[in-house]
C-alpha cells in the first residue's frame, strides 16, 4: 500500500527539519511546474505502507498572494494527498493556526504536528494538545523534529487519518448573512465543472480571491444562470466587507481554539511601559515633560562637563600648547612655525577641543534617553504640534538626528515617504543645534551667562526647533502645499539602557567631533592663519591682513545685528566650511590680538551680553556647513535647493539676529 503525505506549514515552523527527519537521504529536489519554487519529495516506509512525502513551500496563509501560497494550495486541492501534515511551531501557535483554519476550509484530511514543543516548554508556554485536537477536530501530535521525537506517533496518526473517510473537524461560521450567501453560492457552483471543491470556490469568491474569481467568471455554465449573476454582482458590490468578515472570523476562530488551551507566562495587563506612557505621552503634559527632561540634560551637561571637567581640559590644552612651543624653541624652529603652532593650531583647534568634556556629557545623556526608548516618545508628543504646523510627525525623528549632525539629519529624511514632507524636513533640518554649534554657544555662555549655562543652551535648542516649525509652516503653505500625511507612530517598549550601547552612541558623536577638529578645522585654521599673517609687513591678525580685509568687507552686513567687527565676520565666514571653525577662528584672531589672553576673556571685552545673544542666534540659524549643503544637493537632486537653503537660512538668521539686537537695544540691554 502507498499513500501521499503533504507537509505544509509556516516558514520556520520546522517543516523542512521534519521532512528531513522523516525521509532521511531518500529524497529528491526539483521545481514545481511553471514556477521557480523548489519541489522536494521523499519516501518513508511506515509498517507496510510506503509514504510519498511532499514538502510544500512554507506559507503563512493559502491565499493567492505569492507563488509559494499558490503552489501549496494547488497541491492540497488537486494533488490528491491522502493526508496533510500541518507543521505548527509550538512557540507561536496562534499565528500558525491561521493556515490551519484554511486547511480545514479546504476540507483536507489534516494531522497537526505540534513541533518544537521543547522550545515552548523552555519559554514556559503550556499547550493542552487534547483541547486543541478537540476544538479543531483533528489529531494533534507533539513533536521535536530535530530530535526525531514524536515521529512514530505522528506517522501512526497520519496513516489512521488517511485511511479514514474524513476528519470530523469543525466548520467555521462567518456570521449568519455570509453563511447564507456562502450556502447559496456553493449550491449554484455545483452546476459547474471544477477541479476544486465548490464550497471552497464559493468561500474564495466571497473573499475576493482574484485567481478563483477568474476561474468562476470564465465558466460558461455560470454565465447562463441569472441567479448566479445576481448573486455575483451582489458579492462584488460588498467585496471588502465580505473579505474582512471572513478573515476576521478566522482570527476569532483561532482565538476561541487557543483560549485556555495555550497559556503563556503571565504578563501584567498593564506593563510598566503603559504606566510610564500614560504620563510621558500625556496629551497636555507630554511636551512640558519633554522640555523639562531636555532642560535637566543641559543643566547636567554644564554641571558635570564644565564645572568638573572643563577646567581640566582647558589646562591640558594650555599645557600641550606650552610644551609644543618650548619644544619648537629648543630645536630652534623658525619663528613662523612657533607662531603657527601657538597662535594658529593651539589657539584655533585647541579652542574647539576644550569643549570636548561638555560634548561627551551631552551625548552620553542623549544616548541614555535614546537607548531607553524615550526619544520615540519625544517624537510622538511633538506629533500633534508638528501636524498643526503642516509637518509630518516623523519629521521630528530627522530633527533629533540633526542634533548630532545635520548631515545624517538630512539623510534621515529618507524615511519620509511623501516628497513634500521630505523637502520641508530637509530645508528645516539645519536649524537644529548640531554638535558643531555647541562650542560656539559654550564660549559665549562661559563669557556672559556662566550662571545660566543649562538654561541658555536649552534656549538655543528650543529656538532652533521653534524657527524650524515656523519655516515648516511657511513652506507647507507656499512652496510645498498639500495635505499632511497622517501616520501613526509605533512606540517600542521602554528598556533599561545598556552601558555599552550608550557609550558607543556617545563615542560615535564625539569621535566625529574630534575627527573634524583634526581634519577640517585643522585645514581651515591653517588656511586662515596664512591669510591672517599675509601680506608680509602688516601686523599679523590685524585689520590690514588679508583675513582682516575679508572681514572688513563683510562686517557692514552684520552691523545692524550688533557685531559688525571684522573678527566676528571672518568667524561666521569660516563657519560655512564647518561650524566648529567659528570658535577656532575667533580663538586664533583674538589670540593674535592680545597674546596669551584666553578666548573667553577676549570675547567678554569685544561683545556685550546683547550682541553675544544676537551672535549666537546668527550662528544657530545661518547658512549650513559645506558638508550639509552637499548632502542637501545630493538628497534633493538639485544644486538649486542647496543654494536656496544657504541663502534663505542666512536671511532668516540675519533677520532674527537684527531683531534681537534692535529690540534689545530699544529695551535698554545694549
Amino acid at each position, binding site marked *: 500500500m502507498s499513500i501521499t503525505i503533504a507537509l505544509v506549514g509556516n516558514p520556520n515552523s520546522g517543516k523542512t527539519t521534519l521532512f528531513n527527519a522523516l525521509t532521511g537521504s531518500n529524497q529528491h529536489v526539483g521545481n514545481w511546474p511553471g514556477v521557480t519554487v523548489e519541489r522536494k519529495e521523499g519516501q518513508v516506509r511506515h509498517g507496510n505502507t510506503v509514504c510519498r512525502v511532499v514538502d510544500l513551500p512554507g506559507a503563512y496563509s493559502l491565499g493567492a498572494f505569492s507563488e509559494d501560497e499558490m503552489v501549496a494550495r494547488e497541491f492540497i486541492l488537486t494533488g490528491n494527498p491522502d493526508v496533510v501534515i500541518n507543521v505548527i511551531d509550538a512557540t507561536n501557535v496562534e499565528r500558525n493556526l491561521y493556515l490551519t483554519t484554511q486547511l480545514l476550509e479546504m476540507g483536507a484530511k489534516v494531522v497537526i504536528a505540534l513541533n518544537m514543543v521543547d522550545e515552548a516548554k523552555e519559554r514556559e508556554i503550556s499547550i493542552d494538545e487534547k483541547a486543541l485536537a478537540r476544538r479543531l477536530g483533528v489529531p494533534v501530535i507533539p513533536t521535536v523534529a530535530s530530535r526525531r521525537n514524536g515521529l512514530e506517533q505522528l506517522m501512526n496518526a497520519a496513516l489512521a487519518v488517511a485511511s479514514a473517510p474524513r476528519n470530523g473537524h469543525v466548520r467555521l461560521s462567518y456570521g449568519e448573512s455570509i453563511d447564507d450567501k456562502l450556502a447559496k453560492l456553493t449550491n449554484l457552483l455545483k452546476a459547474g465543472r471544477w477541479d476544486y471543491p465548490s464550497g471552497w470556490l464559493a468561500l474564495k469568491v466571497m473573499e475576493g480571491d482574484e485567481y478563483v474569481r477568474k476561474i468562476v467568471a470564465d465558466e460558461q455554465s455560470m454565465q447562463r444562470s441569472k441567479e448566479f449573476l445576481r448573486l455575483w454582482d451582489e458579492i462584488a458590490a460588498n467585496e471588502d466587507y465580505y473579505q474582512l468578515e471572513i478573515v476576521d472570523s478566522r*482570527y476569532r476562530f483561532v482565538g476561541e481554539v487557543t483560549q485556555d488551551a495555550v497559556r503563556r507566562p503571565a504578563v501584567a495587563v498593564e506593563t510598566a511601559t503603559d504606566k510610564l506612557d500614560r504620563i510621558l*505621552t500625556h496629551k497636555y503634559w507630554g511636551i512640558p515633560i519633554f522640555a523639562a527632561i531636555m532642560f535637566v540634560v543641559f543643566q547636567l551637561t554644564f554641571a558635570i562637563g564644565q564645572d568638573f571637567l572643563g577646567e581640566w581640559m582647558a589646562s591640558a590644552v594650555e599645557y600641550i600648547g606650552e610644551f609644543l612651543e618650548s619644544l619648537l624653541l629648543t630645536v630652534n624652529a623658525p619663528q613662523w612655525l612657533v607662531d603657527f603652532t601657538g597662535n594658529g593650531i593651539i589657539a584655533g583647534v585647541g579652542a574647539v577641543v576644550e569643549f570636548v568634556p561638555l560634548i561627551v556629557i551631552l551625548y552620553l545623556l542623549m544616548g541614555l534617553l535614546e537607548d531607553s526608548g524615550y526619544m520615540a516618545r519625544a517624537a510622538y508628543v511633538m506629533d500633534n504640534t508638528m501636524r498643526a504646523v503642516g509637518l509630518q510627525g516623523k519629521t521630528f525623528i530627522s530633527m533629533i538626528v540633526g542634533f548630532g549632525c545635520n548631515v545624517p539629519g538630512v539623510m534621515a529624511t529618507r524615511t519620509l515617504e511623501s516628497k513634500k514632507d521630505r523637502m520641508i524636513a530637509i530645508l528645516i533640518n539645519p536649524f537644529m543645534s548640531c554638535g558643531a554649534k555647541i562650542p560656539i554657544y559654550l564660549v559665549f555662555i562661559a563669557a556672559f551667562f556662566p550662571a545660566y549655562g543649562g538654561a541658555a543652551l536649552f534656549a538655543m535648542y528650543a529656538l532652533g526647533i521653534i524657527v524650524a516649525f515656523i519655516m515648516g509652516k511657511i513652506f507647507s503653505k507656499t512652496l510645498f502645499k498639500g495635505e499632511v500625511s497622517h501616520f501613526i507612530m509605533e512606540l517600542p517598549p521602554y528598556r533599561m539602557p545598556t552601558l555599552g550601547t550608550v557609550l558607543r552612541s556617545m563615542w560615535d558623536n564625539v569621535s566625529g567631533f574630534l575627527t573634524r577638529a583634526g581634519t577640517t578645522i585643522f585645514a581651515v585654521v591653517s588656511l586662515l592663519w596664512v591669510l591672517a599673517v599675509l601680506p608680509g609687513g602688516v601686523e599679523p591678525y590685524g585689520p590690514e591682513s588679508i583675513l582682516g580685509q575679508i572681514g572688513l568687507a563683510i562686517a557692514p552686513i552684520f552691523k545692524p545685528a550688533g557685531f559688525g567687527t571684522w573678527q566676528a565676520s571672518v568667524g561666521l565666514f569660516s563657519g560655512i566650511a564647518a561650524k566648529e571653525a567659528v570658535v577656532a577662528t575667533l580663538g586664533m584672531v583674538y589670540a593674535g590680538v592680545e597674546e596669551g589672553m584666553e578666548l573667553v576673556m577676549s570675547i567678554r571685552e569685544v561683545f556685550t551680553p546683547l550682541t553675544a545673544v544676537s551672535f549666537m542666534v546668527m550662528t544657530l540659524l545661518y547658512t549650513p556647513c559645506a558638508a550639509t549643503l552637499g548632502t542637501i544637493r545630493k538628497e534633493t537632486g538639485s544644486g538649486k535647493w542647496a543654494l536656496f537653503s544657504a541663502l534663505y537660512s542666512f536671511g532668516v538668521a540675519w533677520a532674527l539676529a537684527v531683531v534681537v539686537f534692535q529690540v534689545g537695544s530699544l529695551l535698554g540691554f545694549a
Partner: protein
Amino acid sequence: MLKQLLAAINDAGYVSKPALAAELGRPLVLVEEGFAALVRMGYLAEDAGAGCVDLPCGKCPYASMCQKEPVQMWKITDKGRDLLANMQRAG
C-alpha cells in the same frame, strides 16, 4: 478582532502592540497577526520610507550617527478610514 483592532489603533493615536493586546484581551502574537492582515487587505499601511529601504543601515556611512531605534510608522489608509466611518455610523 480586526475591526476592533483598527478602531483601537485610531483611538490610541499611537501604536503600542502590548497595550492593544491588553485592551482587546488577545495574545500579542494575534495582535501582530492582525496588523499583518490589515496591511494585506489594505486597511493599514506601513511607512516604507523613501530611500532607506534600499540602503541597509549597516552600509550607510552615517548609520552610527543616525537614530539608533528606528521608529515604525503606520497609516490608516482611505479604505481603513471608510471602514471606521461605517463602523461609527453603524454604532
